[in-house]
């Protein structure tokens, strides 16, 4: 059985979500967490968009597309806020790492 385009990209989206979740847990540097959060986000978008393409002969579903465009913009707003908070924390603590996770450096 050959995978359809939609299934292939949905699986790729699922893999990206997993990669992002791993990075979000393991990497303690706050800017890396913001980055991992964005990887999770784009994985979710790809997953959703691919599910809207399961009947290519009918055309791509515009409703998920509209939701995803909205989502991309909201993700950017959150990223901007998160980055501002990270910089503020780093200015006060000297490092962009939460105190309870500040162990030995690699």
């Amino acid at each position: 059985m050959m995978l359809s385009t939609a299934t292939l990209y949905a699986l790729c989206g699922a893999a990206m979500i997993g990669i992002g979740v791993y990075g979000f847990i393991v990497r303690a540097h706050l800017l890396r967490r913001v980055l991992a959060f964005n990887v999770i986000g784009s994985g979710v978008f790809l997953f959703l968009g691919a599910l809207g393409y399961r009947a290519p002969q009918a055309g791509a579903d515009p409703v998920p597309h509209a939701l995803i465009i909205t989502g991309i913009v909201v993700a950017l707003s959150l990223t901007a806020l998160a980055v501002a908070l990270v910089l503020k924390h780093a200015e006060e603590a000297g490092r962009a790492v939460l105190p309870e996770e500040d162990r030995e450096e690699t």
Partner: protein
Amino acid sequence: MTAAFVFDAMLCLLLVGTAVSAVAGRDLFASIAFFVTYGILIGLAWLRLGAVDVALAEAAIGAGLTGVLLIGAWSMLQRRCGDGGNDPAMPVLPKLAAAAVSVTVTGMLALAVLALPVGAPGLVPLVTENLSESGVGNPVTAVLLNFRAYDTLMESIVLLIALVAVWALTPKELWGGVPGLRQHARPDGVLATFGRLLPPLGLVVAVYVVWAGSEMPGGAFQAGTILAAVWLLVVMAGIAEEPRMSSRLLRLALVVGPAVFLGVGLVGAAFGSFLGLPVDFAKALILAIEFALTFSIAVTLALLVAGTPREGT
């Protein structure tokens, strides 16, 4: 096995590869560079999924503006705190647990996808049926500004709230000042040249993208991002400064888009339904909302990327 399938499979492998490099890389700057590459590759994936509107938004916002934000934050951390992005090491056991969580999440999602029926058309017939009443020919714009205009209105307000939240982090003595860092570019350097060369082109492209968005891929968010990028380039090239955050004109520019949108919605409410657009005026109203939104989105995005004021006024 067709050529298209081989292309898709290779693109997916590249996506997974760049995502792993972005998340697991040792050097923070390299990770950010991989993340930008990854964003551009996702844009390609969107083209393969027939989503040109999303591809434009992803390339401009997901890769472009997010990249600028992250690189800016990286350089601030390095200059201000000497934080080069080193990560505290995590012991092996929690790492294994994290890997187990991540594999479980991916595995469950994959199982869900494989269990879905093939060939479901989703909401395509419903949108196609009602497209003639929406006033526009691009189904994504029809959904964004007519069928589900509520989402888009909320989104434009979320952008505004995010900016208010970022501004709220301003230290008291800098309140009302110029957002972001003062830029220094060599007057005869590449950046300064591009800063003069590209803005006129960018302006034309942005106006075209918002105008074309009613019938073809494009629209307010993509065009607003292009405008924001043009402005960021002008500022980075040292040609102009960001406006003071206390400027009334600036604050007016921030709210005009959501205000026009909300106004049209309220007039609709007086005639029957909130945000309902009458068929005869739908196209004109959608374009009016889109042009006002483009302007406000551009200003909001540019200021979100610039961040809080960091120097005295």
